[in-house]
Protein backbone atom coordinates (compact mmCIF):
# COMPACT_ATOMS: atom_id res chain seq x y z
CA UNK A 1 0.00 0.00 0.00
CA UNK A 2 1.43 3.32 -1.04
CA UNK A 3 1.91 6.05 1.58
CA UNK A 4 3.57 9.30 0.46
CA UNK A 5 6.00 10.95 2.86
CA UNK A 6 5.13 14.57 2.13
CA UNK A 7 1.44 14.15 3.00
CA UNK A 8 -0.46 14.06 6.29
CA UNK A 9 -3.15 11.54 7.11
CA UNK A 10 -6.14 10.72 9.30
CA UNK A 11 -7.13 7.52 11.04
CA UNK A 12 -10.19 7.42 8.77
CA UNK A 13 -7.92 7.15 5.70
CA UNK A 14 -8.01 10.63 4.21
CA UNK A 15 -4.84 12.44 3.11
CA UNK A 16 -4.02 16.17 3.19
CA UNK A 17 -1.39 18.05 1.28
CA UNK A 18 -0.56 21.34 2.99
CA UNK A 19 0.40 23.76 0.24
CA UNK A 20 2.80 26.69 0.64
CA UNK A 21 0.08 29.31 0.19
CA UNK A 22 -1.70 27.98 3.31
CA UNK A 23 -4.36 26.08 1.38
CA UNK A 24 -4.75 22.29 1.47
CA UNK A 25 -5.74 19.50 -0.91
CA UNK A 26 -7.77 16.58 0.45
CA UNK A 27 -8.27 13.05 -0.87
CA UNK A 28 -8.58 9.41 0.21
CA UNK A 29 -5.59 7.10 0.60
CA UNK A 30 -4.41 4.16 -1.45
CA UNK A 31 -5.44 1.93 1.45
CA UNK A 32 -8.95 3.40 1.40
CA UNK A 33 -9.47 2.96 -2.34
CA UNK A 34 -8.23 -0.61 -2.08
CA UNK A 35 -10.69 -1.42 0.70
CA UNK A 36 -13.59 0.28 -1.09
CA UNK A 37 -13.07 -1.46 -4.42
CA UNK A 38 -14.02 0.01 -7.79
CA UNK A 39 -15.26 3.52 -7.12
CA UNK A 40 -17.85 4.85 -9.52
CA UNK A 41 -18.86 8.26 -8.23
CA UNK A 42 -18.01 10.98 -5.74
CA UNK A 43 -20.64 13.32 -4.32
CA UNK A 44 -18.64 16.52 -4.06
CA UNK A 45 -19.68 19.43 -1.83
CA UNK A 46 -20.14 22.97 -3.14
CA UNK A 47 -17.53 25.70 -3.31
CA UNK A 48 -18.03 28.06 -0.37
CA UNK A 49 -19.23 25.31 2.00
CA UNK A 50 -17.50 25.19 5.39
CA UNK A 51 -16.15 21.84 6.56
CA UNK A 52 -15.30 20.79 10.08
CA UNK A 53 -12.38 18.48 10.93
CA UNK A 54 -13.57 14.96 11.74
CA UNK A 55 -17.05 15.56 10.29
CA UNK A 56 -18.46 13.94 7.16
CA UNK A 57 -18.16 16.29 4.16
CA UNK A 58 -18.87 14.12 1.13
CA UNK A 59 -19.23 10.49 0.09
CA UNK A 60 -17.88 8.07 -2.49
CA UNK A 61 -19.86 5.35 -4.19
CA UNK A 62 -18.94 1.89 -5.37
CA UNK A 63 -21.51 -0.22 -7.20
CA UNK A 64 -22.96 -1.68 -4.02
CA UNK A 65 -21.92 0.70 -1.26
CA UNK A 66 -21.62 4.31 -0.27
CA UNK A 67 -18.93 5.46 2.15
CA UNK A 68 -18.63 8.74 4.02
CA UNK A 69 -15.48 10.81 3.66
CA UNK A 70 -14.47 12.91 6.68
CA UNK A 71 -12.78 16.28 6.58
CA UNK A 72 -9.22 15.86 7.91
CA UNK A 73 -9.07 19.55 8.90
CA UNK A 74 -11.49 22.44 9.17
CA UNK A 75 -11.72 25.03 6.44
CA UNK A 76 -13.66 26.57 3.57
CA UNK A 77 -13.96 24.88 0.19
CA UNK A 78 -12.17 26.98 -2.43
CA UNK A 79 -12.28 24.52 -5.30
CA UNK A 80 -13.72 21.08 -6.08
CA UNK A 81 -12.06 18.66 -8.48
CA UNK A 82 -14.69 18.50 -11.22
CA UNK A 83 -12.50 16.10 -13.18
CA UNK A 84 -13.53 13.32 -10.80
CA UNK A 85 -17.12 13.65 -12.00
CA UNK A 86 -16.11 12.45 -15.44
CA UNK A 87 -13.31 10.12 -14.39
CA UNK A 88 -14.10 8.55 -11.00
CA UNK A 89 -11.71 5.69 -11.84
CA UNK A 90 -8.86 8.10 -10.99
CA UNK A 91 -9.78 7.50 -7.33
CA UNK A 92 -8.59 3.92 -7.82
CA UNK A 93 -5.74 4.41 -10.26
CA UNK A 94 -4.18 7.57 -8.78
CA UNK A 95 -5.56 8.13 -5.27
CA UNK A 96 -2.95 10.76 -4.36
CA UNK A 97 -3.53 12.68 -7.58
CA UNK A 98 -7.30 12.51 -7.25
CA UNK A 99 -7.85 15.34 -4.79
CA UNK A 100 -11.50 16.05 -3.88
CA UNK A 101 -11.36 19.63 -2.69
CA UNK A 102 -8.98 22.49 -2.06
CA UNK A 103 -9.50 24.08 1.37
CA UNK A 104 -8.70 27.58 2.59
CA UNK A 105 -8.70 29.01 6.13
CA UNK A 106 -7.26 25.67 7.26
CA UNK A 107 -7.29 24.91 10.98
CA UNK A 108 -7.28 21.90 13.28
CA UNK A 109 -4.10 20.40 11.85
CA UNK A 110 -3.25 18.85 15.23
CA UNK A 111 -5.54 15.89 14.53
CA UNK A 112 -3.41 14.83 11.54
CA UNK A 113 -0.81 12.06 11.67
CA UNK A 114 2.37 11.83 9.62
CA UNK A 115 3.26 9.25 6.99
CA UNK A 116 5.12 6.95 9.37
CA UNK A 117 2.29 6.86 11.86
CA UNK A 118 -0.22 6.19 9.10
CA UNK A 119 1.99 3.46 7.65
CA UNK A 120 2.07 1.65 10.97
CA UNK A 121 -1.71 2.00 11.30
CA UNK A 122 -2.38 0.30 8.01
CA UNK A 123 0.19 -2.46 8.32
Amino acid at each position, binding site marked *: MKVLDHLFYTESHEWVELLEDGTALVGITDFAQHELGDLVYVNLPEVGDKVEGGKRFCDVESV*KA*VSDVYAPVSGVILEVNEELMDAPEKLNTDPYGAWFVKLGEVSGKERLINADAYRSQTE
Partner: protein
Amino acid sequence: MAQYVPNTKSEQLKMLEEIGKTWNDLLKPIPQSVRLNRELDLPPGISEFEVMARMSAYAKENKVFPTVLRGAGAYRHLIPSVVRHLSSREEFVTAYTPYQAEFSQGILQSIFEYQTMICQLTGMDASNASVYDGASAVAEAVNMTVDKKRRRALLSSNLDPQSIMTVQTYTQHLPIDVEIIPSKDGRLDLEWLKSNLSEDLACVVVQHPNYYGILEDTQAISDVVHTTKAKMIVSVNPISLALFKEPRAYGADIAVGEAQPLGLNIAFGGPYLGFMATTNEIVRKLPGRIVGQTLDLDGKRAFVLTLQAREQHIRREKASSSLCSNQAHCALTAAMYLTSMGPQGLKDVASQCYHKAHFLQKQLSALDFKLKFHQPFFHEFVTTTPVHTSKIVQHLEQHDILAGLPLDDHTMLWCVTEAVSDKEIHTVLRLLEEVSK
Protein backbone atom coordinates in the same frame (compact mmCIF):
# COMPACT_ATOMS: atom_id res chain seq x y z
CA MET B 1 -58.01 -26.14 0.30
CA ALA B 2 -54.52 -24.93 -0.58
CA GLN B 3 -54.86 -25.00 -4.33
CA TYR B 4 -51.33 -23.94 -5.13
CA VAL B 5 -49.28 -26.20 -2.82
CA PRO B 6 -48.06 -29.03 -5.05
CA ASN B 7 -46.84 -31.41 -2.35
CA THR B 8 -49.40 -33.96 -1.15
CA LYS B 9 -49.94 -34.58 2.55
CA SER B 10 -47.88 -37.76 2.31
CA GLU B 11 -45.05 -35.94 0.53
CA GLN B 12 -45.09 -33.30 3.24
CA LEU B 13 -44.82 -36.02 5.89
CA LYS B 14 -41.97 -37.65 3.99
CA MET B 15 -40.09 -34.36 3.91
CA LEU B 16 -40.62 -33.90 7.64
CA GLU B 17 -39.38 -37.40 8.23
CA GLU B 18 -36.28 -36.84 6.09
CA ILE B 19 -35.24 -33.86 8.17
CA GLY B 20 -36.29 -35.54 11.39
CA LYS B 21 -38.85 -32.94 12.41
CA THR B 22 -42.56 -32.69 13.11
CA TRP B 23 -44.97 -29.89 12.31
CA ASN B 24 -44.81 -28.96 15.98
CA ASP B 25 -41.04 -28.66 15.81
CA LEU B 26 -41.32 -26.29 12.86
CA LEU B 27 -43.80 -24.03 14.62
CA LYS B 28 -41.90 -24.01 17.91
CA PRO B 29 -40.14 -20.67 17.22
CA ILE B 30 -43.53 -18.95 17.52
CA PRO B 31 -44.03 -18.47 21.29
CA GLN B 32 -47.33 -19.80 22.69
CA SER B 33 -48.17 -16.32 23.92
CA VAL B 34 -48.57 -15.05 20.35
CA ARG B 35 -49.97 -18.17 18.68
CA LEU B 36 -53.38 -17.86 17.09
CA ASN B 37 -55.08 -20.76 18.77
CA ARG B 38 -58.12 -20.71 16.54
CA GLU B 39 -58.92 -20.73 12.85
CA LEU B 40 -58.96 -17.42 11.02
CA ASP B 41 -62.48 -16.05 10.83
CA LEU B 42 -62.63 -16.32 7.04
CA PRO B 43 -64.65 -18.70 4.89
CA PRO B 44 -62.90 -21.91 3.80
CA GLY B 45 -61.26 -22.00 0.37
CA ILE B 46 -63.44 -22.57 -2.68
CA SER B 47 -62.89 -23.70 -6.26
CA GLU B 48 -61.72 -21.28 -8.91
CA PHE B 49 -65.12 -21.50 -10.59
CA GLU B 50 -66.87 -20.36 -7.45
CA VAL B 51 -64.32 -17.58 -6.95
CA MET B 52 -64.88 -16.42 -10.51
CA ALA B 53 -68.63 -16.34 -9.91
CA ARG B 54 -68.15 -14.34 -6.74
CA MET B 55 -65.79 -11.83 -8.36
CA SER B 56 -67.99 -11.55 -11.46
CA ALA B 57 -70.90 -10.66 -9.19
CA TYR B 58 -68.85 -7.78 -7.78
CA ALA B 59 -67.85 -6.71 -11.29
CA LYS B 60 -71.46 -6.76 -12.47
CA GLU B 61 -72.50 -4.39 -9.72
CA ASN B 62 -70.45 -1.71 -11.46
CA LYS B 63 -71.51 0.24 -14.50
CA VAL B 64 -69.09 0.28 -17.41
CA PHE B 65 -69.66 3.36 -19.55
CA PRO B 66 -69.02 2.73 -23.24
CA THR B 67 -68.71 6.48 -23.78
CA VAL B 68 -66.55 8.50 -21.41
CA LEU B 69 -66.34 12.30 -21.45
CA ARG B 70 -64.57 12.47 -18.12
CA GLY B 71 -60.81 12.75 -17.65
CA ALA B 72 -59.45 14.72 -14.67
CA GLY B 73 -56.43 12.48 -14.25
CA ALA B 74 -57.65 9.23 -15.84
CA TYR B 75 -58.01 9.03 -19.61
CA ARG B 76 -59.70 6.36 -21.66
CA HIS B 77 -57.84 5.77 -24.92
CA LEU B 78 -57.95 3.03 -27.54
CA ILE B 79 -55.55 0.20 -26.71
CA PRO B 80 -54.27 -1.99 -29.55
CA SER B 81 -54.66 -5.79 -29.21
CA VAL B 82 -50.96 -6.34 -29.71
CA VAL B 83 -50.21 -4.38 -26.52
CA ARG B 84 -52.55 -6.49 -24.42
CA HIS B 85 -51.18 -9.74 -25.79
CA LEU B 86 -47.49 -8.97 -25.55
CA SER B 87 -47.71 -7.41 -22.11
CA SER B 88 -49.31 -10.56 -20.71
CA ARG B 89 -46.30 -12.73 -21.59
CA GLU B 90 -45.59 -14.68 -18.42
CA GLU B 91 -41.84 -14.06 -18.42
CA PHE B 92 -42.56 -10.35 -18.01
CA VAL B 93 -45.51 -10.73 -15.66
CA THR B 94 -43.99 -13.19 -13.17
CA ALA B 95 -40.45 -11.78 -12.85
CA TYR B 96 -39.15 -9.76 -9.91
CA THR B 97 -37.00 -6.63 -10.19
CA PRO B 98 -34.08 -7.53 -12.52
CA TYR B 99 -31.38 -7.88 -9.86
CA GLN B 100 -29.58 -10.65 -11.79
CA ALA B 101 -28.65 -8.92 -15.02
CA GLU B 102 -27.53 -12.01 -16.94
CA PHE B 103 -30.91 -13.66 -16.33
CA SER B 104 -32.99 -10.54 -16.96
CA GLN B 105 -31.68 -8.95 -20.15
CA GLY B 106 -35.16 -8.96 -21.66
CA ILE B 107 -36.64 -6.95 -18.82
CA LEU B 108 -33.63 -4.66 -18.52
CA GLN B 109 -33.64 -3.91 -22.25
CA SER B 110 -37.39 -3.23 -22.18
CA ILE B 111 -36.87 -0.70 -19.37
CA PHE B 112 -33.93 0.89 -21.22
CA GLU B 113 -36.18 1.27 -24.26
CA TYR B 114 -38.96 2.71 -22.09
CA GLN B 115 -36.49 5.22 -20.58
CA THR B 116 -35.41 6.20 -24.08
CA MET B 117 -39.00 6.76 -25.20
CA ILE B 118 -39.73 8.92 -22.17
CA CYS B 119 -36.60 10.94 -22.98
CA GLN B 120 -37.72 11.26 -26.60
CA LEU B 121 -41.16 12.50 -25.56
CA THR B 122 -39.86 15.00 -23.00
CA GLY B 123 -36.54 15.96 -24.59
CA MET B 124 -34.77 15.10 -21.33
CA ASP B 125 -31.44 13.28 -20.84
CA ALA B 126 -32.49 10.55 -18.41
CA SER B 127 -35.59 8.80 -17.11
CA ASN B 128 -36.08 6.39 -14.26
CA ALA B 129 -37.83 3.03 -14.58
CA SER B 130 -41.11 4.51 -13.20
CA VAL B 131 -42.73 5.51 -9.91
CA TYR B 132 -46.16 4.75 -8.45
CA ASP B 133 -48.24 7.31 -10.35
CA GLY B 134 -48.35 10.87 -11.60
CA ALA B 135 -49.16 12.44 -8.23
CA SER B 136 -46.32 10.71 -6.38
CA ALA B 137 -44.00 11.58 -9.29
CA VAL B 138 -44.68 15.27 -8.61
CA ALA B 139 -43.93 14.76 -4.91
CA GLU B 140 -40.69 12.89 -5.63
CA ALA B 141 -39.66 15.64 -8.06
CA VAL B 142 -40.17 18.31 -5.41
CA ASN B 143 -38.00 16.30 -3.01
CA MET B 144 -35.25 16.11 -5.67
CA THR B 145 -34.87 19.88 -5.77
CA VAL B 146 -34.73 20.64 -2.08
CA ASP B 147 -31.40 21.05 -0.30
CA LYS B 148 -30.00 22.90 2.69
CA LYS B 149 -30.09 26.23 0.90
CA ARG B 150 -33.32 25.89 -1.06
CA ARG B 151 -36.37 24.78 0.87
CA ARG B 152 -39.31 26.57 -0.71
CA ALA B 153 -41.55 24.84 -3.27
CA LEU B 154 -44.17 26.76 -5.25
CA LEU B 155 -47.04 24.73 -6.70
CA SER B 156 -49.44 26.04 -9.29
CA SER B 157 -53.01 25.95 -8.00
CA ASN B 158 -53.94 24.51 -11.39
CA LEU B 159 -52.23 21.20 -10.66
CA ASP B 160 -54.46 18.18 -10.29
CA PRO B 161 -55.73 18.60 -6.69
CA GLN B 162 -54.55 15.05 -5.97
CA SER B 163 -51.00 16.03 -6.92
CA ILE B 164 -51.12 19.05 -4.62
CA MET B 165 -52.37 16.96 -1.73
CA THR B 166 -49.78 14.23 -2.38
CA VAL B 167 -46.96 16.81 -2.32
CA GLN B 168 -48.33 18.27 0.91
CA THR B 169 -48.59 14.79 2.41
CA TYR B 170 -45.10 13.76 1.34
CA THR B 171 -43.40 16.91 2.60
CA GLN B 172 -45.39 17.57 5.80
CA HIS B 173 -42.56 16.59 8.16
CA LEU B 174 -39.63 17.68 5.99
CA PRO B 175 -38.03 21.10 6.10
CA ILE B 176 -39.88 22.17 2.96
CA ASP B 177 -42.32 25.08 2.70
CA VAL B 178 -45.00 24.40 0.12
CA GLU B 179 -46.89 27.42 -1.17
CA ILE B 180 -49.63 27.63 -3.79
CA ILE B 181 -49.34 30.01 -6.74
CA PRO B 182 -52.72 31.60 -7.46
CA SER B 183 -54.49 31.22 -10.75
CA LYS B 184 -55.54 34.01 -13.07
CA ASP B 185 -58.11 33.28 -15.78
CA GLY B 186 -57.34 29.57 -15.54
CA ARG B 187 -53.57 29.98 -15.88
CA LEU B 188 -50.73 30.45 -13.45
CA ASP B 189 -50.53 34.07 -12.24
CA LEU B 190 -47.16 35.06 -13.67
CA GLU B 191 -47.09 38.47 -11.98
CA TRP B 192 -47.60 36.84 -8.58
CA LEU B 193 -44.73 34.46 -9.33
CA LYS B 194 -42.44 37.32 -10.35
CA SER B 195 -43.03 39.12 -7.10
CA ASN B 196 -42.66 36.03 -4.93
CA LEU B 197 -39.27 34.75 -6.01
CA SER B 198 -36.58 34.26 -3.40
CA GLU B 199 -33.03 33.01 -2.94
CA ASP B 200 -34.25 29.91 -1.11
CA LEU B 201 -36.69 28.89 -3.85
CA ALA B 202 -36.13 25.21 -4.72
CA CYS B 203 -38.70 24.66 -7.44
CA VAL B 204 -41.82 25.79 -9.22
CA VAL B 205 -44.28 23.09 -10.28
CA VAL B 206 -46.59 23.59 -13.23
CA GLN B 207 -49.01 21.20 -14.91
CA HIS B 208 -49.28 21.54 -18.69
CA PRO B 209 -51.97 21.14 -19.89
CA ASN B 210 -53.23 21.98 -16.43
CA TYR B 211 -56.04 20.32 -14.47
CA TYR B 212 -58.58 22.40 -16.43
CA GLY B 213 -57.06 21.33 -19.74
CA ILE B 214 -55.43 24.72 -20.35
CA LEU B 215 -52.00 25.18 -21.88
CA GLU B 216 -49.81 27.26 -19.60
CA ASP B 217 -47.29 29.80 -20.84
CA THR B 218 -44.47 27.44 -19.92
CA GLN B 219 -41.77 29.44 -21.68
CA ALA B 220 -42.57 32.62 -19.75
CA ILE B 221 -42.79 30.67 -16.48
CA SER B 222 -39.47 28.96 -17.17
CA ASP B 223 -37.81 32.30 -17.92
CA VAL B 224 -39.04 33.71 -14.62
CA VAL B 225 -38.06 30.63 -12.61
CA HIS B 226 -34.58 30.62 -14.09
CA THR B 227 -33.83 34.14 -12.98
CA THR B 228 -33.17 32.26 -9.73
CA LYS B 229 -31.33 28.96 -9.16
CA ALA B 230 -34.66 27.17 -8.70
CA LYS B 231 -35.70 24.24 -10.87
CA MET B 232 -38.76 24.13 -13.06
CA ILE B 233 -40.82 20.96 -12.68
CA VAL B 234 -43.51 20.36 -15.24
CA SER B 235 -46.18 17.67 -15.07
CA VAL B 236 -47.26 16.76 -18.58
CA ASN B 237 -49.73 14.47 -20.30
CA PRO B 238 -47.44 12.31 -22.45
CA ILE B 239 -49.98 12.04 -25.28
CA SER B 240 -49.99 15.83 -25.63
CA LEU B 241 -46.24 15.80 -26.33
CA ALA B 242 -46.89 14.45 -29.82
CA LEU B 243 -48.35 17.88 -30.63
CA PHE B 244 -46.86 20.29 -28.15
CA LYS B 245 -43.33 21.39 -27.29
CA GLU B 246 -41.31 18.95 -25.25
CA PRO B 247 -40.49 20.18 -21.70
CA ARG B 248 -36.77 20.56 -22.42
CA ALA B 249 -37.57 22.97 -25.26
CA TYR B 250 -38.84 25.54 -22.77
CA GLY B 251 -36.15 24.80 -20.21
CA ALA B 252 -37.87 22.46 -17.74
CA ASP B 253 -35.42 20.75 -15.39
CA ILE B 254 -37.66 17.85 -14.43
CA ALA B 255 -40.55 16.45 -16.46
CA VAL B 256 -42.99 14.14 -14.72
CA GLY B 257 -46.50 12.94 -15.28
CA GLU B 258 -49.13 10.27 -15.31
CA ALA B 259 -48.50 7.88 -18.19
CA GLN B 260 -51.74 5.92 -17.79
CA PRO B 261 -52.91 7.31 -21.15
CA LEU B 262 -50.15 5.24 -22.80
CA GLY B 263 -51.99 1.95 -23.15
CA LEU B 264 -53.22 1.37 -19.59
CA ASN B 265 -56.85 0.76 -18.67
CA ILE B 266 -58.53 3.38 -16.49
CA ALA B 267 -59.04 0.50 -14.03
CA PHE B 268 -60.71 2.48 -11.24
CA GLY B 269 -57.50 4.37 -10.59
CA GLY B 270 -54.67 1.86 -10.80
CA PRO B 271 -52.21 0.44 -11.48
CA TYR B 272 -51.06 3.60 -13.25
CA LEU B 273 -47.61 4.81 -14.23
CA GLY B 274 -45.65 7.75 -12.86
CA PHE B 275 -42.81 8.82 -15.12
CA MET B 276 -39.87 11.06 -14.21
CA ALA B 277 -37.20 12.47 -16.50
CA THR B 278 -34.49 15.02 -15.93
CA THR B 279 -31.24 16.52 -17.14
CA ASN B 280 -27.74 15.07 -16.77
CA GLU B 281 -27.05 17.81 -14.23
CA ILE B 282 -29.35 16.32 -11.58
CA VAL B 283 -29.74 12.72 -12.73
CA ARG B 284 -28.11 11.48 -9.50
CA LYS B 285 -31.03 12.92 -7.56
CA LEU B 286 -33.55 10.90 -9.55
CA PRO B 287 -35.22 8.33 -7.25
CA GLY B 288 -35.97 4.69 -8.06
CA ARG B 289 -34.50 2.17 -10.44
CA ILE B 290 -32.50 3.24 -13.47
CA VAL B 291 -31.23 0.91 -16.19
CA GLY B 292 -27.95 1.62 -17.96
CA GLN B 293 -26.13 0.18 -20.93
CA THR B 294 -22.81 -1.56 -20.40
CA LEU B 295 -20.77 -4.50 -21.70
CA ASP B 296 -20.46 -8.13 -20.65
CA LEU B 297 -17.15 -10.00 -20.24
CA ASP B 298 -17.05 -10.69 -23.99
CA GLY B 299 -17.56 -7.02 -24.81
CA LYS B 300 -21.16 -7.58 -25.88
CA ARG B 301 -23.78 -4.87 -25.25
CA ALA B 302 -25.72 -5.59 -22.07
CA PHE B 303 -28.04 -3.78 -19.65
CA VAL B 304 -27.97 -3.54 -15.87
CA LEU B 305 -29.57 -1.66 -12.96
CA THR B 306 -27.21 1.22 -12.34
CA LEU B 307 -26.46 4.28 -10.18
CA GLN B 308 -27.75 2.12 -7.34
CA ALA B 309 -25.82 3.91 -4.62
CA ARG B 310 -28.59 6.58 -4.75
CA GLU B 311 -31.11 4.04 -3.49
CA GLN B 312 -32.54 2.96 -0.16
CA HIS B 313 -30.96 -0.52 -0.07
CA ILE B 314 -27.53 1.10 0.01
CA ARG B 315 -28.03 4.61 1.36
CA ARG B 316 -30.73 3.62 3.91
CA GLU B 317 -31.92 6.67 5.89
CA LYS B 318 -29.79 9.00 3.75
CA ALA B 319 -31.58 8.00 0.54
CA SER B 320 -33.83 10.72 -0.85
CA SER B 321 -36.66 8.21 -1.32
CA SER B 322 -37.65 4.78 -0.01
CA LEU B 323 -38.94 3.80 -3.44
CA CYS B 324 -38.27 0.10 -4.13
CA SER B 325 -41.05 -1.62 -6.10
CA ASN B 326 -42.22 0.59 -8.95
CA GLN B 327 -44.71 0.13 -11.80
CA ALA B 328 -42.34 -1.73 -14.16
CA HIS B 329 -45.01 -3.76 -15.89
CA CYS B 330 -46.99 -0.59 -16.61
CA ALA B 331 -43.82 0.95 -18.07
CA LEU B 332 -43.39 -2.11 -20.28
CA THR B 333 -46.99 -1.72 -21.44
CA ALA B 334 -46.46 1.99 -22.16
CA ALA B 335 -43.35 1.22 -24.23
CA MET B 336 -45.34 -1.36 -26.21
CA TYR B 337 -48.10 1.19 -26.73
CA LEU B 338 -45.68 3.87 -27.95
CA THR B 339 -44.00 1.36 -30.27
CA SER B 340 -47.28 0.17 -31.73
CA MET B 341 -48.38 3.77 -32.29
CA GLY B 342 -45.10 5.10 -33.61
CA PRO B 343 -44.54 8.84 -34.05
CA GLN B 344 -47.34 9.22 -36.60
CA GLY B 345 -49.83 7.11 -34.65
CA LEU B 346 -49.24 9.08 -31.47
CA LYS B 347 -49.64 12.32 -33.41
CA ASP B 348 -52.93 11.00 -34.78
CA VAL B 349 -54.15 10.19 -31.26
CA ALA B 350 -53.18 13.60 -29.92
CA SER B 351 -54.58 15.37 -32.92
CA GLN B 352 -57.94 13.58 -32.71
CA CYS B 353 -58.13 14.37 -29.00
CA TYR B 354 -57.45 18.00 -29.77
CA HIS B 355 -59.84 18.39 -32.67
CA LYS B 356 -62.70 16.40 -31.16
CA ALA B 357 -62.47 18.36 -27.92
CA HIS B 358 -62.42 21.66 -29.77
CA PHE B 359 -65.32 20.57 -31.96
CA LEU B 360 -67.40 19.59 -28.94
CA GLN B 361 -66.56 22.83 -27.16
CA LYS B 362 -67.72 24.92 -30.13
CA GLN B 363 -70.97 23.03 -30.48
CA LEU B 364 -71.56 23.20 -26.74
CA SER B 365 -71.21 26.95 -26.68
CA ALA B 366 -74.13 27.12 -29.12
CA LEU B 367 -76.13 25.17 -26.50
CA ASP B 368 -75.27 27.78 -23.88
CA PHE B 369 -72.46 25.78 -22.25
CA LYS B 370 -70.07 28.74 -22.07
CA LEU B 371 -66.33 28.25 -22.00
CA LYS B 372 -65.20 29.31 -18.53
CA PHE B 373 -61.64 30.33 -19.40
CA HIS B 374 -60.81 31.77 -22.78
CA GLN B 375 -57.43 30.09 -23.01
CA PRO B 376 -55.80 27.59 -25.35
CA PHE B 377 -56.57 24.00 -24.32
CA PHE B 378 -55.74 20.42 -25.33
CA HIS B 379 -58.49 17.81 -24.80
CA GLU B 380 -60.16 19.07 -21.65
CA PHE B 381 -62.08 22.29 -21.03
CA VAL B 382 -64.38 23.82 -18.47
CA THR B 383 -67.83 25.15 -19.28
CA THR B 384 -70.64 26.62 -17.31
CA THR B 385 -73.83 24.59 -17.67
CA PRO B 386 -77.32 25.96 -18.44
CA VAL B 387 -78.85 23.47 -15.98
CA HIS B 388 -77.62 21.84 -12.77
CA THR B 389 -74.65 19.56 -13.45
CA SER B 390 -76.31 16.65 -11.63
CA LYS B 391 -79.14 16.77 -14.15
CA ILE B 392 -76.63 16.47 -16.99
CA VAL B 393 -74.81 13.60 -15.35
CA GLN B 394 -78.05 11.71 -14.75
CA HIS B 395 -79.42 12.26 -18.23
CA LEU B 396 -76.24 11.10 -19.94
CA GLU B 397 -75.90 8.16 -17.54
CA GLN B 398 -79.32 6.90 -18.68
CA HIS B 399 -77.79 6.67 -22.14
CA ASP B 400 -74.60 4.93 -20.91
CA ILE B 401 -72.50 8.05 -21.27
CA LEU B 402 -70.24 9.29 -18.48
CA ALA B 403 -70.58 13.08 -18.51
CA GLY B 404 -67.82 15.54 -17.72
CA LEU B 405 -66.76 15.97 -14.10
CA PRO B 406 -68.96 18.42 -12.17
CA LEU B 407 -66.74 21.03 -10.51
CA ASP B 408 -69.75 22.65 -8.87
CA ASP B 409 -73.50 23.02 -9.49
CA HIS B 410 -73.04 24.85 -12.77
CA THR B 411 -69.48 24.13 -13.92
CA MET B 412 -68.22 21.03 -15.66
CA LEU B 413 -64.79 19.73 -16.75
CA TRP B 414 -65.13 17.91 -20.08
CA CYS B 415 -62.68 15.56 -21.78
CA VAL B 416 -62.70 14.06 -25.26
CA THR B 417 -60.21 11.50 -26.50
CA GLU B 418 -59.93 9.60 -29.76
CA ALA B 419 -61.86 6.77 -28.05
CA VAL B 420 -65.05 8.83 -28.39
CA SER B 421 -66.29 8.40 -31.97
CA ASP B 422 -67.69 11.14 -34.17
CA LYS B 423 -71.08 9.48 -33.89
CA GLU B 424 -70.94 9.43 -30.10
CA ILE B 425 -70.11 13.11 -30.02
CA HIS B 426 -73.17 13.88 -32.12
CA THR B 427 -75.29 11.75 -29.79
CA VAL B 428 -73.91 13.61 -26.78
CA LEU B 429 -74.78 16.93 -28.37
CA ARG B 430 -78.32 15.77 -29.07
CA LEU B 431 -78.77 14.58 -25.48
CA LEU B 432 -77.36 17.80 -24.06
CA GLU B 433 -79.71 19.80 -26.20
CA GLU B 434 -82.58 17.78 -24.72
CA VAL B 435 -81.45 18.22 -21.16
CA SER B 436 -80.76 21.94 -21.36
CA LYS B 437 -84.18 22.81 -22.78
